[in-house]
């Protein structure tokens, strides 16, 4: 009996030692030199592998940083300025800071505001519905509500609200990686400059048709009337193709445009309630307080 035991131990040990030697030899002979700084940079990065930088994962981004002369076109939106600063320091390069951004869904066409004129009964993805029809209402620019943007988010920052039928973004979690922007076939989601306290003022409409047609399709559509453009003191608003657009770089969050909009298509989020002026006493829809 003990003979078997000794032989077994001997044989297994020999196999183990020979294998170890072979593995060591191979690992030395076929070793690929990798700059050790890549590992250091990779450890600094958040490790979400979301692709928001445009490269194939955090390791690829680390490689690109190490091989680059300057960090001009390399920015990790998830880690933000903090981690880019650390990366720059570790590589001896100058960090380039970018203002943090967040995503907004530029449509407020809820079931209440935008009546359905047909019902879609195909496979439930926005891409499929949009390939055949422009939507279930008379507005051909609005959100389809089937949620292609939801599963692509790596940070659990976007979900469909079952009451309104529209996606909602959790600002605290959003890293502006851009996955939802790409997933939306109607390009309704936009990346805007992040303001303090996550406050946002934006035109929640993408409808480029003439005001009368847009308003008939949806109560809170932008009719391109131009009142907001006139009232803005910072030249942040432009009307093109019957649609207003607020430049987040110029906007100072003064809220004047919100109160003059006749259709309430400009939304303000995370603000305390504004004193309602008599001429703008129409019912406002605030997604946070709803």
């Amino acid at each position, binding site marked *: 009996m003990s003979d078997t035991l000794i032989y077994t131990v001997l044989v297994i040990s020999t196999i183990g030692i020979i294998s170890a030697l072979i593995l060591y030899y191979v690992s030395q002979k076929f070793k690929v030199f990798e700059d050790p700084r890549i590992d250091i940079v990779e450890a600094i990065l958040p490790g979400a592998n979301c692709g928001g930088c445009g490269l194939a994962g955090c390791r690829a981004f680390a490689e690109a940083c190490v091989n680059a002369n300057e960090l001009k076109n390399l920015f990790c939106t998830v880690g933000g300025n903090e981690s880019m600063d650390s990366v720059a320091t570790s590589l001896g390069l100058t960090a380039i800071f970018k203002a943090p951004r967040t995503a907004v869904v530029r449509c407020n066409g809820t079931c209440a505001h935008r009546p*359905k*004129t*047909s*019902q*879609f*009964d*195909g*496979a439930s993805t926005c891409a*499929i519905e949009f390939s*055949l*029809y422009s939507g*279930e209402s008379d507005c051909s620019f609005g959100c389809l509500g089937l949620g292609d943007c939801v599963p692509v988010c790596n940070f659990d920052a976007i979900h469909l609200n079952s009451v309104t039928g529209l996606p909602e973004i959790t600002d605290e979690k959003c890293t502006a990686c851009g996955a939802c922007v790409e997933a939306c076939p109607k390009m309704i989601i936009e990346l805007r400059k992040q303001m303090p306290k996550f406050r946002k003022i934006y035109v929640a409409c993408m409808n480029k048709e003439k005001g009368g047609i847009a308003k008939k399709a949806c109560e809170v559509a932008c009719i391109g009337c131009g009142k907001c453009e006139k009232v803005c003191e910072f030249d942040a608003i432009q009307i093109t193709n019957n649609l207003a657009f607020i430049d987040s770089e110029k906007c100072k969050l003064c809220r004047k445009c919100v109160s003059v909009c006749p259709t309430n298509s400009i939304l303000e989020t995370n603000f305390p309630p504004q004193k309602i002026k008599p001429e703008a006493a129409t019912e406002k829809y605030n997604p946070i307080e709803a």
Partner: protein
Amino acid sequence: MSNIFTISPSPHIKGDESVPKIMYGVVVALIPALIMSTIFLGLNSLKVSFIAVAACVAFEYLIQTYILKIKATINNGSAIITGILLAFNVPIGLPVWMIILGSLVAIGIGKLSFGGLGQNPFNPALVGRVFLLISFPVQMTTWTAPVTAIDSFTGATPLGILKEGVKSGKAISEITHQLPGYFDMFWGNISGSMGEISAIALIMGGLYLLWKRIITWHIPVAVLGTMAIFQGILWGINPEKFIDPVFHLITGGAMLGAIFMATDMVTSPMTPKGQLIFGIGIGILTICIRDFGAYPEGISFAILIMNGFTPLINARIKPKQFGGSK
């Protein structure tokens, strides 16, 4: 206008095939075999079938509702089929708790652990049966004699008798007098599980499935044909060592396996060419196990092995393309 139209992509009409229709079609095809086993093996057949079906359906409902927390899909009939096929594969004298355990393994491990209907790579009823066979070899090979048996009938299946005889070194001609006659084996007047005894009942069921287009001829013909040819060659070489091919076709799980188990849609290839390759593989493996292996019956293992090859066959064997380019 009050009604809003439905908009949907084409096609706007649907054929009348559905999963429940397929499953209940298979249940109907198994009724002749059920009747024959009740006649030859007694009322215990019905009891075993009922317990297996009830256990399978119950386990599927419980696991889906409470563990997986998804909508229970017992209405599509697939759990019922697994139950019946499992009952058809075990001796009817098997203790009730073993049948229930087999059902749990078949449904829980064989089907639901892979994701439910359509996702399992192995035939769930066979997973249950093989589990029972390996765990409880004695109880799983204690067969009940047919009710028509007279006194000294041992209750062993024809394949069991053959295997015993060959193992003890006897030539075929010495074993044949112990075996039941071909007529008995064809009609079902033999020992065995419910799915093994009556070849004619299973053939009737198979014809019904072909008529209803639930199965195509490719797999049954490939399995049985390969078995017949392979065994025929061996028998031609040495009739004293290998018994004739007809015997192999009508005994054991050959008919049940070829017509009902190997043709399970989820675990078999999807193209006709792939199905033929699949059937040929099963035929060869079955004969190898039956003639050269330790077990008297090999088709369950053969089918499970070929189930493992199905994804490869599906990936490599493509259907004939119109205007085929390379």
